C-alpha cells in the first residue's frame, strides 16, 4: 500500500478514490464533473498549458521583484541558458553520464535483488538468515554511505553507482518478496492438480504473479536512485548533473543552475513515464490484482 502510494500522483489517487465511489452507488455523482466533450478549455492539455503559463508568469514577476539575476534569474534567462547549454552539448554530456550511471546501477541492483527476493520468499531458511541483515542495513540511507564510499572509491564515477545500486536494492528486494509471497496458493494447487511441473509452475504462475509487484519496486528503485545520484555526484563526482548544478552555483551562474535542475526534473519525469508504459505493456493483468499504475 505504501509502495503504491509512492508511485502514484496525488491526482491519480484522488481520481481512483472518486471513481470507486461512483461505482458503489449509481446515485453518487459529482454535480460539477458533468462536462461536455470537445471544449478545448476543459481539455487536459489546455489545463497543463494554462497552469504552466501562470507559474511562469508568477516566476517572472518574482524575478522582477527580487531584481537579482543571481538569486532569481528570470524564466527567459533560464531558457537562454538551456538553449546555450544544449548547443554546446554540455547539457546532454552531463545528462548522459548520469543516465549511464543510473542504468548500470539499476542493472546491478536488479540482478542481485530480484533472484534474492525469490529465494527469500520461497525458502524460509534463507529468509531467516538473510532478512536480519537486510533489516539492519535498510535504515542506513544511501546518503550516509557517501563519506565512507568516498574513502573506498575516491571521487569519481564508481561512488554514484555504488550509492544508487544500494538505494535501489531495498525497494526491489522487498517488493519482489511481497510479490512472490502474494501468489495465490490456490493457483499453485490448481496447477498441481492439472499435473503442471514445478518449473512450469514457477515460470507460468510465480513469475507472472510476482511481476507487477517487482515492477512497482523497480519504479520506486528508479525514483530513489535518481534522487540519490544528485547527492552523490554533488558531493563526490567530477561529472554528471549533480556535479554540474553545484559547479555553476559556485560560479554564480544561476541560469545554468536552473537549467540543469530542469533537466534533472525532465529526465526523472520522462523515465517514470517510460517505466509506467512498460509496466502497462509488461503486466496488463496488474490492475486485476489490485496493483494498478
Amino acid at each position, binding site marked *: 500500500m505504501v509502495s503504491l502510494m509512492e508511485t502514484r500522483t496525488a491526482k491519480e489517487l484522488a481520481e481512483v478514490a472518486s471513481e470507486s465511489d461512483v461505482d458503489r*452507488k*449509481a*446515485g453518487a*455523482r*459529482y454535480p460539477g*464533473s*458533468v*462536462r*461536455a*466533450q470537445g471544449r478545448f478549455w476543459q481539455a487536459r492539455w489546455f489545463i497543463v498549458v494554462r497552469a504552466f503559463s501562470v507559474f511562469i508568469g508568477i516566476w517572472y514577476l518574482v524575478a522582477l521583484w527580487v531584481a537579482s539575476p543571481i538569486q532569481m534569474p528570470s524564466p527567459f534567462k533560464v531558457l537562454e541558458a538551456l538553449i546555450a547549454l544544449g548547443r554546446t552539448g554540455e547539457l546532454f554530456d552531463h545528462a548522459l553520464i548520469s543516465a549511464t550511471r543510473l542504468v548500470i546501477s539499476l542493472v546491478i541492483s536488479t540482478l542481485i535483488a530480484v533472484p534474492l527476493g525469490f529465494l527469500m520468499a520461497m525458502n524460509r531458511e534463507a529468509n531467516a538468515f538473510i532478512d536480519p541483515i537486510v533489516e539492519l542495513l535498510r535504515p542506513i540511507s544511501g546518503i550516509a554511505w557517501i563519506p565512507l564510499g568516498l574513502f573506498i572509491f575516491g571521487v569519481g564515477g564508481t561512488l554514484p553507482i555504488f550509492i544508487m545500486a544500494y538505494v535501489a536494492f531495498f525497494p526491489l528486494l522487498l517488493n519482489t518478496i511481497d510479490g512472490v509471497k502474494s501468489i495465490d496458493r490456490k493457483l499453485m494447487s490448481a496447477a498441481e492438480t492439472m499435473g503442471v511441473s514445478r518449473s512450469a509452475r514457477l515460470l507460468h504462475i510465480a513469475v507472472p504473479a510476482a511481476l507487477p509487484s517487482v515492477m512497482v519496486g523497480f519504479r520506486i528503485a528508479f525514483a530513489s536512485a535518481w534522487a540519490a545520484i544528485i547527492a552523490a555526484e554533488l558531493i563526490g563526482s567530477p561529472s554528471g548533473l549533480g556535479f554540474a548544478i553545484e559547479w555553476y552555483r559556485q560560479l554564480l551562474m544561476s541560469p545554468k543552475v536552473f537549467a540543469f535542475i530542469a533537466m534533472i526534473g525532465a529526465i526523472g519525469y520522462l523515465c517514470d513515464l517510460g517505466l509506467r508504459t512498460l509496466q502497462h505493456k509488461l503486466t496488463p493483468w496488474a490492475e486485476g490484482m489490485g496493483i494498478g499504475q
Partner: protein
Amino acid sequence: MNVATMPSKAQPKLRLRNVSKEYVAPRTGQRTLAVSDFTLDVRAGEFLCIVGPSGCGKSTVLNMIAGLDQPTGGDIEMDGHHVRGPGAERGVMFQDYALFPWKSVRDNVGFGLRHGTPGAGLTAAERNDRVNHFVNMVGLAGAEAKFPHQLSGGMKQRVALARLLANGPDVLLMDEPLGALDAQTRMVLQVELLRIWGEAAEEGDRKTVVFITHGIDEAVFLADRVVVMSSHPGRVSAVIDIDIPRPRRESIRSEPRFGQLTDEIWSLIRDEAYQAIA
C-alpha cells in the same frame, strides 16, 4: 382496514408526484433515465416496502426522498412541504450501515444528537439518556465502547438502527438494511425491527417507514403495502396490500396467505429478474 373510519388520513406523509431522475454520464454525455414518472403516496405510520429487480432505481427513489439526490422532474413533498435537501426528520439507514469507523458505538448513536439538528436544545445529560435508551432498545448494552470493526454484521445493523432512531426522525428510510446479513440473522432482525417500530403500539404512534429490499418474503413479512418496481426506467408496476394481521410472528411464514402474496409479487418481477441475469 377501513379507510373511511380513519379521520386524518387525507394528507399522506410523503407524496411523490411524477418523479423522474435522469443521469448524464460525465465523459460520454450519455443520458440514462433511472426513474420515470414515479407517483406514490406514503401514509403516516405505514410500513411500506419497495421491491424490484436489481438496478430498477429503488435506491434512487429512496435517496430522492432523503434529499440526497435531486429529482430531475416531478415533486416530492413531506407533510405538504417540498423536499429540498437532506434533513433529520427523514432519517436514513444505509445499505452498508455508513457507521463512522473512528467512533465507538455510543458516539455513533449519538452523532446526530451531538453534531446535528436533532440535538438542539438538549443538555448533555438528556442526550446521554437518549443514547442509552436506544442502545438498550436494540440490545447493544455492554458494547457501547466498541468500534464498528469489532462488531458482527448483525450488531452493526443494530447500531445503525439505534442511530437512526436516536435522531427522532418522522420518516425512516431504509435502504436494504438487512441485505448484507446471513439468512438466520436476517429473520431474527426482521421480527425485532417490527417490535422496535412499534407493531404492538397504537397505529398513530408508529413511524412511517420506507423500506427497500430485494427479498420478496422480507417485504411481505414486514410491510403494510409493497410497491413493486419495474426497471429501465424504474417505475411503479404494482402496489400490493399485505392483509396479514399484526403483530406478526415467525409462524406466518408458513401460512397459505403468505405464500400467495409472495407468489403474486414474484410473478410480477420474475421476467425482469431472468432478463437481468441473462
